[in-house]
């Protein structure tokens, strides 16, 4: 097993929980997130690009996002497997997770470019500040703010919310 500081096991121990949380947020399915987490690490183990990556942690998270979206794309074509309906006993957070609106937003994210999607996911689902995102994707903080704002605007458009006025 890789014993280097950013080796696979190290990433699992330091960032595994966050990766799992991210996959769960992107799929809204605990069972799917568990499977995708395993798939992610097996993929990273075999990926030459991961071994060469300048920032292996960022690579791992990017791959996780892509895996989740591959799953979401595929899922659209099928009858959804049994999905627990909201119940009165659920917490507000659980209700939110299971709400159709959240699913719509996640679906809408698919229509963004991979970079825009990554920025939105990193900022809102991973709570990363713009400065940190900028460092990861090698843009300025100002650029990242702008891209994020535009991306969210596109999500709004996609979701058919009330149109804003012209710029």
């Amino acid at each position: 097993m890789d014993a280097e500081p950013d080796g696979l096991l190290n990433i699992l121990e330091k960032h595994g929980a966050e990766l799992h949380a991210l996959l769960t947020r992107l799929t809204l399915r605990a069972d799917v997130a568990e499977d995708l987490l395993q798939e992610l690490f097996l993929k990273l183990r075999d990926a030459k690009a991961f071994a060469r990556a300048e920032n292996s942690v960022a690579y791992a998270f990017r791959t996780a996002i892509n895996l989740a979206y591959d799953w979401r794309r595929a899922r659209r074509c099928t009858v959804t497997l049994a999905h627990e309906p909201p119940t009165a006993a659920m917490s507000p957070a659980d209700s939110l997770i299971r709400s159709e609106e959240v699913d719509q937003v996640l679906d809408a994210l698919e229509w963004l470019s991979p970079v825009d999607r990554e920025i939105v996911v990193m900022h809102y689902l991973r709570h990363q500040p713009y400065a940190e995102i900028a460092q990861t994707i090698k843009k300025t903080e100002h650029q990242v703010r702008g891209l994020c704002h535009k991306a969210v605007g596109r999500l709004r458009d996609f979701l058919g919310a009330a149109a804003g006025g012209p710029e």
Partner: protein
Amino acid sequence: MRREHRMNDNDEVISRLEGLGQWQPAPAATDRALERVRRALREPAVPPRSKPRRWRLPAFAAAVLIIGGGLGIWLMRSSPSARASLAEMQHVMKEARTVSFRQVTRLKGKPDQVTRMLIRSDGVVRSEESDGTYTVTDMPKFEALLVNPGKHEATRLRGVNVPQVNLYEMIKNLPADASARALAGKTIDGKKAFGVVVTLQGHELTVWADARTRLPIRMEAHQEEGEEAGDAVLDDFHFDTLIDSNIFSMAAPTSYKVKTTGIATLPPPPSPDQAKQMVATPLVGLGPVRFRMKREEVEKLLGKPDAVEELGPSHGFHLNYGSRGFFISGGKTNGVFTISCVSQICVVVRVHDFAGRTDKGIRLRASEAEIIKAYGKPDQRTTNRGSTYLEYRKLNTSFTLFDDKLVEILLMRPPPGK
């Protein structure tokens, strides 16, 4: 004003995203997911075997890997339209405790190989060959018993590097990604069946299941090129039938001559300081061990090996220092003649990866380019089934790589006078 209006519209989207970002999965779910990854990463990736090393597992290992690995990959790549079918199979398989099937392997230019497999859900597997020999493998215990009734002999292998695959577990933990495609249904042996096709490491695996019971009834794999071009068909599946538990016994039949080899428990790996001393020098040796040293000298310098095997009537020796990632072989008279420093990925027995280096700083996982930079262009470079061999004749040394990562350093005794 205009900007504020846009912000309000965005707020709804942002609030959904922020709300989602606050949500955390249950700690138990995260712990389970992480542990599952740790287990998966402990399993070595299974490359095609490049050259036979030490013990060869019989065909069942390949069969189990096809089944386990194939199904594993199949599950991970199931198409959306197929997932309902796979989920149904998954649910039904969860209830079964044994499964048996027949595997017929047809390789070009070779006679058909027929193997009967019996798999118990606790990880004990029995494979029976058409010549009467059979093997029982206890995967959780890394142990296998090879029995040859024709010779009244049995070999017990301890510390076998078997993947920790569990057929039922693999079906149960159905990943949701999708690349498999569903097939039109057909009738197989009078039963209506539905099928899916998945791609396993570039090869297609077709799985057919009974439309009524949702259990697999046939699987087909085909390989067009290479040394093992041919087909494998798995059929005659039986689930949860009454099977005499004695056939899964790891005890050798009475009165058989039993040879035991390998180690039951792998000792811990060397410390970093100990690993530093392990320098493999072509034409010289490994650490303090020199070519031509007698076995007693080696053991005095390195300590007792994890296991010892005597080779042939001339009482050669094979010293297993697998916990330190190397093996030393030699003759009784002429002493040490080969030293092999290995990665788990290329040996059948359980080892710790060799943590030392060569005299020029080459360590396991080094690339071909790094090796060439250190030792120059090899005298011969060959590839076989994904493995690359670099041979340096003047150094009596070869390097084996898989997927451009060094997995074995083999040093051989120099000719006399060198």
